[in-house]
């Protein structure tokens, strides 16, 4: 199984959308680091004082639409490219179980959001050098107080906040990734699957006004990586404590991820290819 997973990573590295995504994630932070101060201030109410704030900007901008979209696109292409090339048939023809083949692909698509975020973080830190990566007064944008902060932030503290946020952001992208794979199994097409996944997320966003549904909507937890949004999310969900947002969100994200994965496995097992 390990060898099959390794092959999947090899294939993932050659996917066009995957490569484009990584490149965009790597280069995007430079846009923010070099953005005119006035413009940045106008949009985010922020004047960059440290390179440690660039990762937050990249994450805020990316998680809004770009990273979910790139994740959905790449996950869909993991199956779609095999269908287009005709190689899925040669895999399924072998005595290796279909579930094993798809499980390896699930591992690959779960890894991709982290590769994307790693590229983004790397680009952010490189771009952040322009503004310096020493101690600074303010906030990383990924702590409880956002960019305002609570005083002097040491580099280690800043890095810890950023790593925590990026780790959570990856988990937020997991269900989207597996949802796109599920749609790819259903439609056997990259475009249809990616569009269906994105449309599902947008539909969930539109369901926000239905209060009883809110705790179960994936979109409610899209900001889970940013502690400054917890009070608002807690109010949105009617939770007594902002601390409860993360555990509740993680449980739901895991349920969605595992649920989509199991569904994909069940469908793929009896799917005409």
């Amino acid at each position: 199984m390990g060898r099959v997973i390794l092959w999947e990573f090899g294939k993932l590295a050659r996917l066009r959308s995957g490569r484009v995504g990584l490149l965009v994630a790597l280069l995007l932070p430079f846009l923010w680091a070099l953005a005119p101060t006035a413009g940045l201030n106008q949009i985010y109410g922020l004047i960059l004082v440290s390179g440690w704030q660039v990762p937050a900007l990249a994450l805020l901008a990316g998680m809004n639409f770009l990273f979910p979209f790139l994740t959905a696109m790449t996950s869909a292409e993991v199956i779609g490219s095999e269908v287009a090339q005709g190689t899925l048939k040669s895999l399924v023809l072998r005595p290796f179980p279909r579930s094993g083949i798809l499980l390896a692909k699930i591992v690959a698509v779960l890894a991709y959001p982290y590769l994307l975020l790693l590229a983004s973080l790397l680009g952010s830190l490189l771009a952040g050098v322009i503004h310096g990566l020493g101690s600074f007064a303010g906030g990383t944008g990924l702590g409880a107080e956002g960019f305002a902060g609570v005083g002097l932030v040491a580099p280690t503290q800043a890095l810890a906040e950023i790593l925590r946020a990026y780790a959570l952001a990856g988990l937020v992208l997991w269900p989207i990734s597996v949802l796109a794979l599920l749609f790819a199994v259903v439609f056997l097409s990259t475009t249809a699957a990616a569009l269906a996944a994105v449309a599902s997320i947008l539909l969930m966003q539109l369901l926000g006004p239905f209060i009883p549904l809110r705790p179960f909507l994936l979109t409610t937890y899209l900001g889970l990586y940013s502690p400054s949004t917890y009070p608002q999310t807690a109010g949105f969900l009617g939770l007594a404590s902002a601390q409860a947002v993360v555990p509740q969100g993680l449980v739901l994200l895991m349920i969605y991820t595992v649920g989509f994965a199991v569904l994909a496995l069940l469908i793929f097992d009896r799917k005409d290819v």
Partner: protein
Amino acid sequence: MNAVEAVAGASAQVPSASLEAQNLGKKYGRKPILESVSFRLNPGEVYALAGPNGSGKTTLIRLLTGLAFPTSGKVLMLGQDLHNGGHAVRRYLGAVVEAPAAFYPHLTGRQNLEMQAFLSGLTQAEARIREVLAKLELLAVADQPTGAYSLGQRQRLGLAAAILPGPKVLILDEPTSGLDPLGINKVHEILAELAWNGTAVLLSTHHLREVSGYADRVGILGGGRLIDEVTMTTKGERYRLRVNEPERVAALLKTVPGIENVTLREVVIIFNGAPQTAIAEAVREGYQVLALERDYFDLYDYYRERVRNA
């Protein structure tokens, strides 16, 4: 002993078909693509599947290889239901389901085969890979990415991948498509050799005259149904005899040992068996022999007629 070995062991005791389709049907929505297709393929048999475009050949092949699931009926491979828990029996299946065969373009021919060997659970894969590459005359390009292969090379690599696990059942969709005449001959040689060694071979083809030389049976598909099955075992042994009194001679030949399947087609007697014996008997009884010639069965003409009348 795993499930497949148990099946193979059981098949050694009770002779069973290598591949059997039982009332196979497939619908997409309400539209039937295949209806009640049944046939058996025994070890060492070559079964050619013919039919016009849209007759359901590729769908049938996808069902027989387990790529698609039937709406009704089942496929037994070495006695095991292929679609219900029978994925392990694919250890004995070799197949090329689309022409040209598809490979990962960034991997070399050898690496693609290594991947397939691993997924097939092959031991000593390296030697076997070299062997099949040599058989298909691909050693010179084995370490080049398949993205740079010509159509014919990809098709030959597809056959190499199919025969890699030493299959007991080989299913090929248009195996000679895109090949030059030498390549076509090579493929036919390999298929005939595999069948001689006990592999059951099923192939779809439009080139009926090519396969009539070594196919045992030809199934003709039309409108999603198996409209006819032609047995080719008597190929090359049939003769046409013209005599002065055909009805009497036909009656006579029916009593002659070694002369079989005597039929009268208008004024021509068709029979199987030694032509010298037939002539000697007719002359001995005082009949005049006007002509004797081989009765070539033209599969292509038969196919055309059968499809037209279906």
